[in-house]
């Protein structure tokens, strides 16, 4: 049995209470949501937090997928399994289901949460790329109230986010705009494994041209890669295989993978391009099918 180092444990009964507990422990406490990232790290003794604040009783405050004010709002404690099964997301942003089908396995998906995934900020994590591609904004709450940040500002560095030591991520907001199509593609060594490379793409097509686009990559850099150059290229252009091939080329150039057990750098660059091309093609096909 792998055993974590000793720690204290408390269960929050409200978001404000959880924040108060974080403040009280002054940097020594960690939120635990699904626990599928944090507990393995504790058991391997890669992380040894002194206090855990469990937010799993806060489903009434933090677990929902709802449409409001021209946005889809997803509570931070929403589990992977619920993202996978959501009709609302399937209708507007099918890339969530694409990603959720290949994130981990059912056991992990039953417990793991979108908040935990984003806050873990592992570069190989799929939902960060998904959220970046659809230009999500996230809501962070602290003792002084709430703020909203874009995904670009959310990813600060490897395993680092804009969420402070005494703050909680509470919500993810997705803009609702017409003409949207989206897709997520991942290459993995085996079902349930983290990506060798993955790409998320979203396009908003109006009258045959791409009005806006979002493309982001997982596992090919120290953090999620936002492909700004590719987005620029796509914006205002008509969707075509050649265009997507150019965007894919940018993906292979603008990522910065490192060699590891999943593969060498050139293979990962190659995959970044293949995944980007596939994601853009399907995103655009979906947008056009919606339009038709």
């Amino acid at each position: 049995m792998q055993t974590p180092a000793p720690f204290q444990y408390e269960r929050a009964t409200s978001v404000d209470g959880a924040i108060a507990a974080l403040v009280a422990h002054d940097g020594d406490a960690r939120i635990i949501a699904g626990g599928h990232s944090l507990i393995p790290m504790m058991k391997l003794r890669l992380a040894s937090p002194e206090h855990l604040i469990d937010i799993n009783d806060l489903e009434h405050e933090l677990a929902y997928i709802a449409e409001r004010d021209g946005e889809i709002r997803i509570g931070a404690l929403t589990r992977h399994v619920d993202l996978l099964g959501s009709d609302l997301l399937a209708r507007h942003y099918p890339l969530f289901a694409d990603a959720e089908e290949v994130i981990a396995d059912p056991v992990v998906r039953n417990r793991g949460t979108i908040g935990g995934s984003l806050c873990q900020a592992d570069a190989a994590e799929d939902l960060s790329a998904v959220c970046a591609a659809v230009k999500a904004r996230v809501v962070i709450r602290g003792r002084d109230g709430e703020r909203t940040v874009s995904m670009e500002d959310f990813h600060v560095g490897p395993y680092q986010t804009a969420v402070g030591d005494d703050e909680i991520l509470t919500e993810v907001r997705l803009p609702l705009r017409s003409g949207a199509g989206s897709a997520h593609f991942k290459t993995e060594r085996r079902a349930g494994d983290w990506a060798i490379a993955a790409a998320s793409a979203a396009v908003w097509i109006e009258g045959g041209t791409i009005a806006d686009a979002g493309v982001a990559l997982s596992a090919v850099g120290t953090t999620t890669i936002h492909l700004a150059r590719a987005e620029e290229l796509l914006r205002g252009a008509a969707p075509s295989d050649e265009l997507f091939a150019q965007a894919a080329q940018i993906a292979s150039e603008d990522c910065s993978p490192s060699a590891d057990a999943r593969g060498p750098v050139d293979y990962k660059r190659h995959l970044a391009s293949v995944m980007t091309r596939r994601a853009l093609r399907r995103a655009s096909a979906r947008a056009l099918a919606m339009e038709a």
Partner: protein
Amino acid sequence: MAVTEENLPSPRQERPIGFGRLKRKEDARFIRGQGTYLDDIRLPGMLHGALLRSPYAHARIVSIDTSEALALPGVAAVVTAKDLETLGLAWMPTISYDTQAVLAGDKVRFQGQEVAFVIAETEYIARDALGLIDVEYEPLDAVVDARRALHEDAPLIRDDKEGQVDNVASPTWEAGDQEATDRAFAEADVVVSRDMIYPRCHPAPLETCGMIADFNPETGQLDIYNGNQAPNVHRTVYAHVAGLAEHMIRIRCNDIGGGFGNKVPVYPGYVCAIAGSIVAGVPVKWIEDRTENLVSTGFARDYIMRGEMCAKDGRITGLRVDVIADHGAFDSTAQPTKFPAGFFHICCGSYDLQAAHVKVKAVYTNKAPGGVAYRCSFRITEAVYLVERMVNALALEMGADQIDLRMRSFIAPEQFPYETTTGWTFDSGNYAETMKVAMEIAGYDDLLREQADKRERGELMGIGVSFFTEGVGAGPRKHMDILGLSMNDGADLRVHPSGKAMVSISAQTQGQGHETTFAQIVAEELGLPPEDIEVRHGDTDRTPYGLGTYGSRSTPVSGAAVGVVSRKVRDRARLIAATMLETRPEDLAWEKGRWYVRGDPEQGAMIEEIARYAYSGEPMPEGMEGGLDAQVIYDPPNLTYPYGAYIAVVDIDPDTAQVTVRRFIAVDDCGVRINPMIVEGQIHGGLAEGIGIALMEVITFDAEGNCLNSSFMDYLIPTALEVPEFELGETVTPCPHHPLGAKGVGESPNVGSPPAIVNAVIDALHQTHGVTHVDMPCTPARVWAAMQGRPEPPQ
């Protein structure tokens, strides 16, 4: 050929007796979660152990300070090599006549090596204390590449061994006839050569290794709970290592969550648990975690091979093989004494060769010890991989179809028993017939057409074939032993007065279904219902001596013992029945479950009636004691030689290089099938493992000797999604010398499937990308590199 339900005993059938599809008796407890595994056992007053392991692959130990750990509340003791020295337990013998440090005192020789053992009130405290032990290391240059280990400037790993001046673990071992082989090559029309690696992988049983040792200082009795594959051998080893009297040691295995060869060796943790219990005077439990299992216990394979094969007149004629075997820091490879490279020299395969010559040299490296027979009879997996890859390389070179070349080169049915050029006597076979059944199931010609069509469209599809012959069921005492113990197995059968029976065996199930299969053997021979036969195993106080379960030896050796002991009981029953029926034994005939009078079939005695009689006050036959039981030790006259034809169909994504095994056809000939359902289950499991080995499983190290695959996030084993619906078939060529006509089968699928898959990958890529070899595992990155024209061996 296909699976049929006809021999399933129907619930209404009065006596579902003997061979056939019978649901596993043991599953009632397993599927209810009521098995008893090691961690389910808690003894009163038990303490818990944990091992401190080396972070370095090669380093001198300057000092060990345990004072802070000892001061942690709840810690009972911290044991180091110094303490073990006083008990004479600092070093232990391996199964290959090497010695292995129980706890490192002088040097650590692989990352994860055992350095200190903490005993505490709970497992948590024991593990917390590990961080408080202060070990000062002086790091040394580490060697992880077996070829580099042979260089003159390589650091000496085993400076503990007197006279050891290099890293050679065992000198070059040879089989076959070198001159005759040279001649075959000189006369050949075609010669091919390939360098290939069978990479280091790990059996990774889901239940990790562990032990509870319970030494009673009053009586001197040592009770051990430990799931291992050879409890009787372990008892002898502990008697030897710990200087305890063998009759005062009792080992109980209970249920075992997988072994696959990983639970054959004696590990340092076991000796520590025993030493801990002797010192503490209370039971000590030690169970390793997943990482410890992967980084320190018996790995498999790690063979660096060069093969050359030649053909003349369209047939395979010769084979030359040169191997460097990486044994890690201590030589604890599993094999019979006379065979330092196991049965690797069976690598001449299923072909009627003119000559073959095999050389194997073993070296020490700064890697975990092992070389266990992972679901394989002592290196046969490596041998089959080598020969079946070479046959495909030869077929490529000749432009021949991979099946045609095999068909032309097979040993013919009339040549059996067949003496191979490397000294094996294959007992029986009809290889071409089995190959044909596989081709039929696969629809081989259709597959070739499909492949051609797909190539036109730029799709990559491969068809790979392998045909293997295994030698299993070690083994005849005149040829083989392990640590001086003959590889025989005992069986003890008692039929009670009520007609219920108990058979005690020395084989040790780890999931193979012995409780069902062995009951069926007795049922077949005595005509008792299998549910009335209890199979007793896994307790050295209550079972006969024997060498355990690995190398597919359970049915070939222990199963034969059960068959023979049942017949002995049947023969006794005949004598008793003759007295009961007031006739002569010669006048009696047997039908399942009953002796009857030849001329008067109404007159007879059921086996249950005979049993009741045997224990009653009625007169026994002249000179015969009461009761109905018997005991045997079975010495197999030869190994059994199961074989099979496997065909894999793979698809490769041309962009991502991901390999999907779309179909897998396995036609096995394991002789008579006692329980076809269990046989198929064994084949399913082994094929899944073979797919894992071919596509994803590998243990690698960086240049400093850090193990890079120390959890299931890094050591990938296949899931249901990587495994296709298997298509199985069978042919039945009974083993001529086995009492039941059976041959082992548990390992065949693991042995036979990797080369079929790799051959399929190469078949998919050869025409389009010029790929002639890819080493396992065929991960997307490695296949992609091969497609770019630079295949790389795993490191």
